[in-house]
């Protein structure tokens, strides 16, 4: 049985989780040019939630996640992945052709591959967190 709640773990989790999440977003955004990307970032974020799960248990983590069920995250990820393939149709190009736009003010390069990568991120995050959470949930209920 996984026991939650040593002081060191709790404190570390509380401090590390936001950092890990921030880091995962960083990895996600720079992924196209430097090591990183949706899959890795998703795993890092899932690691963050798993750490929190170990420290505080399932119900506390659910509170952190608020309304979002990890299973919904999977759906959101797939949806984003599907959405990102559509714009090419309207440009009269073959399915899945990447589209690039530059957002002027912050000089940020937005693209369909980025949307796609965010989809991967959510799908991975949702899958792993969902599985770990369910495992722990089942664990908790058992005698």
């Amino acid at each position, binding site marked *: *049985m*996984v026991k939650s709640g040593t002081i060191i773990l709790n404190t570390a989790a509380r401090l590390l989780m936001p950092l890990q999440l921030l880091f995962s977003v960083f990895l996600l955004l720079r*992924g*196209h*040019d*430097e*090591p*990183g*990307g*949706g*899959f*890795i970032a998703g*795993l*890092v974020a*899932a*690691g963050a939630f*798993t750490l929190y799960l*170990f420290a505080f248990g399932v119900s506390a983590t659910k509170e952190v996640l608020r309304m979002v069920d990890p*299973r919904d995250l*999977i*759906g959101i*990820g*797939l949806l984003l*992945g*599907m959405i990102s*393939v559509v714009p090419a149709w309207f440009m*009269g*190009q*073959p*399915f*899945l052709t*990447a589209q*690039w736009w530059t957002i002027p003010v912050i000089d940020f*390069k937005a*693209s369909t*591959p*980025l949307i*796609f*990568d965010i*989809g*991967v991120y959510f*799908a*991975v995050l*949702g*899958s*792993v967190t*969902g*599985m*770990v959470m*369910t*495992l*722990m*949930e*089942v*664990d908790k*209920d*058992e005698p």
Partner: protein
Amino acid sequence: MQLAVLMGFLLAASSPLLHRWFGHRTSLVLALFPAGLAAWLLLQAPEIIENGSLLLEWQWVPSLGISLTFLLDGLSLLFGLLITVMGACVLVYAGGYLKDHPDIARFHIALVAFMVSMLGLVLADGLFTLFIFWELTSITSYLLIGFNHADIEARKSARQGLFVTVAGGLALMAGLVLLGIASDSWSLAEILSQEADLREHALYTPMLICLLLGAFTKSAQFPFHFWLPNAMAAPTPVSAYLHSATMVKAGIYLLARLHPELGGTAMWVGILSVVGATTMLTGAFLAIHHTNIKKLLAYSTIMALGTLTMLLGIGTEYAMTAFVTFLLAHSLYKGALFMVAGILDHETGTKDVTQMGGLRSLMPVTAMIALVAALSLAGVPPLFGFIGKELMLESVLGAGSFRMLLVLFAFVASILTIAVAFIIALRPFYGKRHHTPLEPHEAPLSMLVGPALLAVGSLLLGLMPALLGANALLTSAATSVSGETMEVTLSLWYGINVALIMSIISLGVGFLLFKRWDSVRAKLSLLAPIMRHGPEAGYESMMNGIVQFSEWQTRLLQNGYMRNYILVMLITLIALIGNSILLRHSPIFAFDLDVRFHEVVVAGTMAMGALFATTTRSRLGAVVSVGVMGFSIALIFILFSAPDLAITQLLVETLTVILLVLVLFRLPRFSNLSTSLERIRDGVVAAMMGILICLLIMTAWSIQQFEPISTYMIENSAPLAYGRNIVNVILVDYRALDTLGEMFVLALAAIGVIAMLKLRHGENSNGKSGESSKVTTKEPYDG
């Protein structure tokens, strides 16, 4: 047009929202969509009739020959108009029929999605797109048959319909692929305009058989006809739309579409005319067994589908005219009759025609519609059905082969059909009033508009076949079916000929049969024991066989022991890899070994980890040492400058250890369960696997058959894909389709794990499933 069709799916998805906004009027709002499409199609009609066809190009995946291009010619225009016009009628009708049904939003989702899929099916130019839409119609049909999902019969019928049509769909896919290979094109327009004769091609016979299997199952041809009457478990609007006017004609459409390229051979003529005629007779014969009005109509639909197939088989110019005319006539009267059946069911509370009677005074409009539509079914002048039937008999008389058989079958079938028509038109409305479960009264306006429109259509087209360019439309359709320019002139009066005499005789005999229907039915019920051994019994026993087989092989292979799964998988892999590397090719070692000291250290660490994991008696120790191996692999990735892979490996390894630790707590105490012999066997299998993989890697390292694609990717990553991280560019750009597929695999696996954990809650074996699926989920992404 493509956009309009794709938007239809969005419309279907947003139908719950529309229900919140429009309430009961949603059906009317949704009906605007097919009505608009019909108007658009009508606007294109003059050009199509003028030029023969219209190609709306739209690329999808050009590298695979997949396109969303739409081909609009006479045939698809006729089908497209049928689908949209009938669709509008049915939507309006369904608004009345299911007015207070709590799930009407779900019904609209499936119905609109079906309509769009069917439209895509008849308009598609690409073979792949055609297949996708074909399967979509099967799936939406399944959802609609099983609409009353609380009813076990409805579920069973829905499953049966799905199995039969999807099994046929598989055959169809094989047929389409063969067609694509044989004609070297994936576009129908190109295939149809090709010079080369596919009939001479070596693949002609297997291709035709596969395509026919697909078409026959979809269009309920004998011996696959049994699913259609069962599909009547669907709400009546669905029966009217899918199972008489549109979906079941998809198979017919495919045959008609390919007729110019594939038709006319002895095989085509033989199979199509005999199967068609048999279906026609079977449908008509089985119809008069039933007193359930929907079953009566369903069997008479089978009869009509058989007729259409037979006409395509006959293949003369006359038969082509008869085909398009009969097709239009049938959709008009059968749609109206089904809607009348729905009204009767809705208002009286019974589907049994023998329970109804004397309803004419209570429901005068319905009675009128039923009479017109049924007379068209019977082929009584001056209705449109008469022209269709006249042409059908005429083409049967002019058939090249099997003439006597076809004439006999057609004659008997038309007598039986006439009896059915009289039963539907007269039995519920005339004679003595019966007591019915509900107090009958006239249907609301929304339920009368659709059938009335269709009945009026039957009447007007019969009186004036040239009305609204119908003649030109049918000419254009017949031209696309036959592949040669044709001139169709329809009229009610062709002079006194054999066909007319046959019609008159069959009318008389049919009426007599109707009069003596009750006693005929009593006599026919004596046949019941024989009927039980029909094709449906064959289907049942086949399904039972499949279930038994899968139970047997599940017990054998999936017995719940992880070690057995791994053993089976490894032995299979060893056999396959060993076969190809050792027997078919010989391993080659032609590389220079240049080993550094630190590499030896890492490899040594991995070997130590592996050894420790297999020998230790502590579970935690084993997990940790497996982790050591994983981290060493990550180290190797870093040494060979693949930071992305290394990060991924590290993260996956970490999560795997976490999952394993979670699972460890639920395992029983460590004990030696296997005998030493079993352990030796496991050791041998593991060693063989390791050696084989090693050989494989060394061989792969030695042979460079192709230029590595990595150079292309490295060179083009920044200029083409605007990214310097090649791994990421491959994942999200070059190979995005693969990644998309992997995302779905991952999601499915995760959902499966979550579901299994929740389902098997409390059992001890649930840890295993989580672990094994984790392994499969991470693999495809890295690969």
